[in-house]
């Protein structure tokens, strides 16, 4: 071994979007395939990213393969732009994609990467939503083997999943799946829509924006193309139910900051919560909440 060897100066210099061009091309091809077969989990050779598998590397590879210098990107985690992981991902994108703008405003973004939420504001045709996915396969709860799940998907065999839902109703009188609610795309494949709450699932149905889902560790890309059917798996006589935000009096809770009663809320436990009473509720979507407050200020100013 050459003991004189030193690291070349350019050893740590990275290209636009970090990934090499061949990797980007491969991901774009998979995206095209995923759009062409809605809900199909397209396998791809996921690359290692400089953040942990499970931290959004699948979403990030999609973002980096699709992003161009004219894009404006927004990154959220749990609905918030300043959550640690969102900050870390946004910083990395800014670092490796010079000339790309980043924004916190949903309406301004051309590309939105998100973990666990779909923005409250309905998305537009010119926008792409990238969701980070830990478990790409809705069937994993009933079948551990990927090879067998692949056959079940091909045959449209979701009987075991439906049985699970049925057994839930028998045992608990309620379907107990809280998030990652199995959703049938375009009448065939059932997807795991990523760990978004049930509240967000209806947003997938006929979404104007393209929704791409990327699982880095599990090496899968799938899509909900624009204006595509996306229906949560239910029974005719048991309707799909989203999270319940009514209080004991049957009133819909409101965000304590902006007053909205039409958003997904975070439950925040105060310091004096010994009796479980010191709770406040606020919008999980930080940009939506800010927008509500701004427009009510404008209205107040107009009235004054």
């Amino acid at each position: 071994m050459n003991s004189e060897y030193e690291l070349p100066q350019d050893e740590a210099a990275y290209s636009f979007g970090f990934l090499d061009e061949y990797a980007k091309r491969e991901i774009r091809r998979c995206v095209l395939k995923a759009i062409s077969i809605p809900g199909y989990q397209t396998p791809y050779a996921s690359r290692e990213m400089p953040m942990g598998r499970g931290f959004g590397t699948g979403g990030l590879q999609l973002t980096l393969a699709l992003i161009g210098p004219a894009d404006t990107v927004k990154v959220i985690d749990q609905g918030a732009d300043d959550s640690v992981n969102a900050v870390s991902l946004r910083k990395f994108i800014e670092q490796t994609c010079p000339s790309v703008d980043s924004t916190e405003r949903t309406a301004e973004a051309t590309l939105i990467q998100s973990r666990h939420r779909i923005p409250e504001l309905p998305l537009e045709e010119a926008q792409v939503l990238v969701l980070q996915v830990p478990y790409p396969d809705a069937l994993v709860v009933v079948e551990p083997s990927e090879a067998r799940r692949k056959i079940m998907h091909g045959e449209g065999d979701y009987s075991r999943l439906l049985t699970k839902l049925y057994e839930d109703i028998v045992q608990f009188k309620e379907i107990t799946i809280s998030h990652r609610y199995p959703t049938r795309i375009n009448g065939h494949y059932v997807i795991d829509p990523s760990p978004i709450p049930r509240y967000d699932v209806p947003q997938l149905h006929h979404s104007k924006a393209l929704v791409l889902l990327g699982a880095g560790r599990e090496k899968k890309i799938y899509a909900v193309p624009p204006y595509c059917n996306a229906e949560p798996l239910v029974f005719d006589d048991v309707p799909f139910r989203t999270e319940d935000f009514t209080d004991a009096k049957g009133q819909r809770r409101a965000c304590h900051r902006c007053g909205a009663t039409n958003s997904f809320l975070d439950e925040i436990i105060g310091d004096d919560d010994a009796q479980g009473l010191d709770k406040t509720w606020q919008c999980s979507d930080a940009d939506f909440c800010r927008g509500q407050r701004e427009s009510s200020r404008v209205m107040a100013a107009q009235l004054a």
Partner: protein
Amino acid sequence: MGYVAIRGGGRAIEGSHAAVENLRTAEGESGTPLSLASIEHQLRLLTSRILSEGGLYHPRLAALALKQMQGDTLEAAFALRAYRSTKPRLLETPLQDTSKMRLIRRISSAFKEIPGGQMLGPTFDYALRLMRLDLANESPEAFRKVAGSFLQNAAVEDLPDSFPKVLDALRNEGLLPPLNTTARQAFDITREPLVFPVPRSAALATMARAETGSLLAIAYSNMRGYGDVHPTIAELRVGYLPVMLPHPVTGELTEAGEVLMTECEVVAMYEGNANDGPPVFTLGYGACFGHNEVKAISMAILDRALQKGMRDGPANPSEDPEFVLLHVDGVDSMGFASHYKMPHYVTFQSDMDRLRTTQKKNLASQTTTATRAPA
């Protein structure tokens, strides 16, 4: 009130980076920064592990990764892997011939004597694991004196270079299946995802960069009884493999450099042969970058176990290609275990919603039963 979810995430991250750097330099003024050459040589087995799990042969970068990650093997291998993502694949390496390895060590436990002889080389196998207190305060002079003394009295021409492979002898005797010489495309796990069933080359490539501990644990389950590979090490060799690549102009195979690697071939008991022909021993193969003997042995055992699973269906976890291959990657498993540290309050909100609703329904049905009971 007053609690706001992870506000100022950016500042917090910067602060944590500073804290990490502070611990790295905690020796203060009496400390000397580790040189990459020192890590590469004095912690050579650690560097080897990173090379192998990182799947990129770059000892100096592996040393840098170890320094940066303060000795965390999972993180260091991960950094090397991520660096690899930025590099295009320029060409496919043709088959490399490991009989050309310049060996520093080779043993066979199958035979007392082997062609070329057993060569123990650098190993702790027969060293007593007693604390060597003389190393605690080793002087630079003593260190340099040792460095100069090894093989001082041996003539260069007396030092062996390459050795024949032990398996060849067994094969010549008809104890092993004949070599399958049909040219097959090797599966490149860095460019193709694993879609099961996968060919053996995909399994070998996956295990070659697997996390050592994960591989060992699953191989050990097979050795202990959740499996039946009773292996004998036909040959374990460690050395420098000349890497032959086609010359960019002439296309002729040219030595482009060499990589330190460990190779292990195990022979296991024969089985009834499904095809016609006499029964023969079965083989398991393991190889990885760097000097990692336990890893190469574990891999060879699992290769043998997986071949059986692929043929007859898995009877044990270690024979199930999906189970083994999807759970041995350190970057994947460590990343996913770490991700649970990230906020999950939106999904937890959904969880609470389900539990509260179910509890309510449960309470309601209990009350109905209670009121009905006296009637």
